[in-house]
């Protein structure tokens, strides 16, 4: 790891100030991606601004319309939250299957969503539930947030403060995890909300994406059978030592069907 200047702000204002005017500074939340990236010398930030000291960023709030999760809320806390389990059980279940227990004790929702790893779990929930991302300067709808491989609508110095998930009538998430890293080879989040049915796929492509054909079929008939013959094209999907693009394309339909079954339980 290259050395850097370390900052531990206590408030959002201090964090924003620490990042300002430093194009090579990087904010750090749980560090579950940033620290491995630094160890491999794939990044060389001038400054690391550690958000772990900012109390206002952690916590879960529930109201009649949905759940708001502070950016620095750990995966373990989302997974074990009675409020999340009550309002959107699929979201708590997803959080409980990220990485492993020690990773869940550090990793945060805001960090995962801001990083937009193509195989991360949370982006599927954010897009699948039509969540809203609140930042230090604005709110961004899920459809406008995820832009591409590790790319989001966030601008330099802009930090996620919370994410608001509308309650779902039905929701389910199923993934095929890589046996070593637990990252999703393919993960599919399916949700039926007041706004309609959404199907969001992570792990398969360079960035989380929706499958309109499945959404339309599920809107007519919310059952696993309704999507059994819908295939996504393998073109442009990820292909690596863990699985080919064709294999991932096949897994999308399998995981989507299982997610619908899960949602119908």
């Amino acid at each position, binding site marked *: *790891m*290259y*050395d*850097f*200047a*370390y900052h*531990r702000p206590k408030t959002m204002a201090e964090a924003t100030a620490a990042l300002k005017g430093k194009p090579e500074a990087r904010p750090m939340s749980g*560090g*579950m991606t940033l*620290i*491995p990236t*630094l*160890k491999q010398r794939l990044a060389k930030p001038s400054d*690391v601004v*550690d958000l*772990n000291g900012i109390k206002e960023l952690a916590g879960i709030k529930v109201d009649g319309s949905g759940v708001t999760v502070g950016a620095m809320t750990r995966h*373990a806390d989302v997974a074990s939250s009675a409020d999340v389990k009550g309002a959107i059980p699929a979201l708590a279940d997803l959080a409980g299957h990220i*990485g*492993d*227990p*020690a*990773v869940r*004790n*550090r990793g945060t929702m805001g960090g995962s969503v801001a990083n937009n790893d193509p195989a991360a779990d949370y982006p599927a929930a954010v897009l699948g539930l039509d969540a809203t991302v609140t930042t230090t300067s604005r709110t961004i709808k899920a459809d406008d947030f995820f832009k591409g491989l590790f790319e989001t609508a966030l601008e330099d110095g802009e930090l996620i403060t919370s994410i608001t998930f509308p309650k779902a009538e039905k929701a389910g998430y199923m993934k095929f995890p890589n046996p*070593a*890293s*637990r990252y999703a080879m393919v993960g599919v989040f399916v949700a039926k909300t007041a706004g309609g049915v959404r199907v969001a796929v992570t792990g398969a492509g360079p960035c989380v994406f929706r499958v309109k054909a499945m959404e339309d079929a599920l809107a007519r008939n919310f059952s696993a059978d309704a999507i059994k013959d819908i295939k996504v094209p393998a073109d442009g999907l990820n292909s690596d030592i863990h699985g080919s693009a064709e294999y991932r394309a096949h897994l999308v339909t399998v995981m989507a069907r299982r997610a619908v079954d899960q949602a119908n339980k």
Partner: protein
Amino acid sequence: MTINVAMTVNGKAASGKVEARTLLVQFLREHLGLTGTHVGCDTSQCGACVVHLDGKSIKSCTILAVQAEGGKVTTIEGLAESAEKLHPMQEAFRENHALQCGFCTPGMVMSAIDMVKRHNYQLDEATVRRELEGNLCRCTGYHNIVKAILAAAPAMKSAGV
């Protein structure tokens, strides 16, 4: 960038000068000489480096030493009451022959204690196996590790730890 860091390690005050990039596991092993915490994969997958920070299991290869500032760290060296009296989890690992080469053992024991507490001393085999997903044993010794953890859960409860 050099920073003074201070934390409580195994109940005692510990401090030192570290670089910002120094990992917690490096601070424990190289500055404090606590080499019971191992570095296996160095990529947050194997769990040989698991310690407790403020009562929660974490991978000490994936956190900076400065991030533990002011925190309470427990390592494998901090578990036994004395040289004669092991922690119930350590005792269960010994009784059940839950190790072969022993390299993964410190991380296994630390994760296992966290697991037992989170599940309020009540575990079944499937839960133990699922919860061990972040701890890899390359001797394929999981069978006895699972047995040891299941045996340790009631022992920890009756010992009040």
